[in-house]
């Protein structure tokens, strides 16, 4: 088994997929860093101050004004109300929710990329792990070795898990290194509040905890990793089912994007919470944003994702070990 994993790893590295992904991440992080830098500058300009309290207060006021507008959807209104209450809580306790520095940037970047960007990167790898062997034709050599088919697939899946782990790490590391050059590398121990529970538009602060930013960051990374693994597994399944890499990627991309759209409009369709796509934003449970559908919790989302993951694995292994190869 070890040797099989090495084989798959060798092929992955030889194709320089990880390098390409690293490059993509680096470019994006640089862009976001610049955007963030510009944003802070213009805010300072506008308010004539750089105290975070004033900036946060202004954000609250801005949100309150947006609430006053009659044109916003109920959904959005609820989310705004929750975020206002949260900001207010930070303000009341004199804790800066976005302590300047690279760790905060990493946190923001990871939170915002958890439901589309990172899954996309994983898809680059997952969606052709199997189908590329088909398109190359090498599958015929691979499957006529004295090795059970499930072992071959398992080695590929293990490599997917490993590369997912690496990609998540690389994304965080690059975000830290690049943004640190602009914002400074401090801020690991900045306090972060977690444990908000959202009930409709109410924010329950009875269970809040305070932790260092590095702890919070690691927890978020764990969740982001899990999401990446689930999306990776699903693309992996498609890679087994659909022999064309492009088609597999297309299907997965459509699913992810529909998830983003659905998350913004499914609040009244309760059974939509069983779709994997609306459960991808796990980090919002930690930071205390309203879930897309009322009643969704961290546990329910993780469970839903886990069921999808297991189902995808069952389908992948059954199909792969039985399918005829032409």
């Amino acid at each position, binding site marked *: 088994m070890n040797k099989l994993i090495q*084989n798959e790893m060798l092929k992955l590295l030889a194709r320089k997929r990880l390098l390409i992904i690293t490059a993509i991440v680096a470019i994006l992080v640089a862009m976001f860093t610049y955007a963030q830098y510009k944003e802070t500058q213009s805010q300072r300009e506008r308010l004539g101050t750089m105290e975070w309290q004033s900036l946060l207060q202004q954000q609250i006021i801005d949100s309150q004004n947006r609430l006053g507008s009659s044109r916003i959807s109920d959904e959005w209104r609820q989310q705004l109300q929750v975020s206002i209450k949260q900001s207010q809580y930070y303000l009341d306790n004199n804790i800066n929710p976005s302590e300047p520095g690279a760790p905060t940037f990493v946190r923001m970047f990871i939170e915002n990329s958890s439901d589309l960007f990172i899954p996309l990167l994983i898809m680059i790898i997952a969606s052709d792990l199997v189908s590329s062997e088909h398109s190359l*034709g090498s599958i015929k050599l691979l499957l006529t070795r004295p090795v059970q088919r499930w072992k071959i697939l398992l080695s590929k899946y293990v490599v997917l898990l490993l590369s997912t782990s690496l990609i998540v790490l690389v994304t965080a590391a690059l975000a830290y290194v690049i943004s640190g050059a602009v914002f400074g590398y401090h801020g690991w121990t900045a306090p972060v509040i977690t444990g908000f529970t959202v009930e409709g538009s109410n924010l329950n602060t009875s269970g809040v905890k305070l932790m260092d930013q590095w702890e919070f960051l690691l927890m978020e990374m764990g969740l982001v990793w899990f999401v990446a693994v689930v999306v990776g597994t699903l693309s992996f399944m498609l890679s087994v089912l659909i022999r064309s890499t492009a088609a597999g990627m297309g299907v997965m991309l459509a699913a992810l994007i529909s998830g983003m759209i659905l998350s913004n409009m499914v609040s009244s369709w309760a059974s939509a919470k069983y779709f994997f796509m609306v459960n991808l934003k796990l980090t919002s449970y930690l930071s205390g944003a309203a879930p897309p559908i009322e009643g969704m919790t961290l546990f329910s989302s993780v469970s839903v994702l886990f069921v999808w993951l297991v189902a995808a694995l069952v389908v992948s292994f059954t199909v792969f070990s039985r399918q005829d190869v*032409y």
Partner: protein
Amino acid sequence: MGPNGAGKTTTIRMLVGLIKPTSGSMVVCGYNVRTHFTKAMEKIGCIVENPELYPYLTGKENLLHFARMLPNIPETRITEVVAMVGLEARIDEKVKTYSLGMRQRLGIAQAMLNHPKVLILDEPTNGLDPAGIREMRQFIRELAEQEGLSVLVSSHLLGEIQLLCDRVAIIKNGEIIQVDSVKNLLSSQEKMLWKVDPMERGKAVLTQLTDVSESTDGYLVTAFEEKEIPKWNVKLINEGISVLEMNRKLPALEDLFLEVTGVGGSSIE
């Protein structure tokens, strides 16, 4: 051997476990391919259709890759098979830089890694130039003789089979029509050509003795029956017919093939 679409590749795919037979079973060296897949595969080295190795790896990396999928292949074996196929000079280069013939040889090298008892080659000379074809043919024969293994070759190139193989099975529409050694198959179809004068009378005499047909270039054609031929000859001479020419003709496999499969020449190279 069989025309395109006869079921050659399908048979080989079933033999190496790539596809399931709808009925029946495949047994390799005593192991059922479906129930004892790994045991059976340990006895087999194969190339199904083209040897599709990983173009982004070097030749050596490809061999290492496949060696790791086999039990207990020492590093020295890789050097051995590389030498066997004569790829020492280019083995550390990426496969995408190889010519088709080199890929074919690298494919055979990987098939030979596990000291197979059976080497299965699907259309091994497909796409090669004439020199490459000859080289490959020679190489396969050498391999069979030196390594003492059975080589199963599928082909629709009849000349190739005639030169390469000892036994041949002719497949058509998924059924084996005939299996025999090449020699036997051919000799059963041996013909005798007669040039006689006058032809009409000669034909009349021979017709009394056996089936006779007339070839386009003025020969009378009968079956080749070693014991009967002298008698027929005497009879002709006794009848006052001069026998100008007697030719024993071994047919090409192609003729045999056409005759057996009843397929027109259009699909045969």
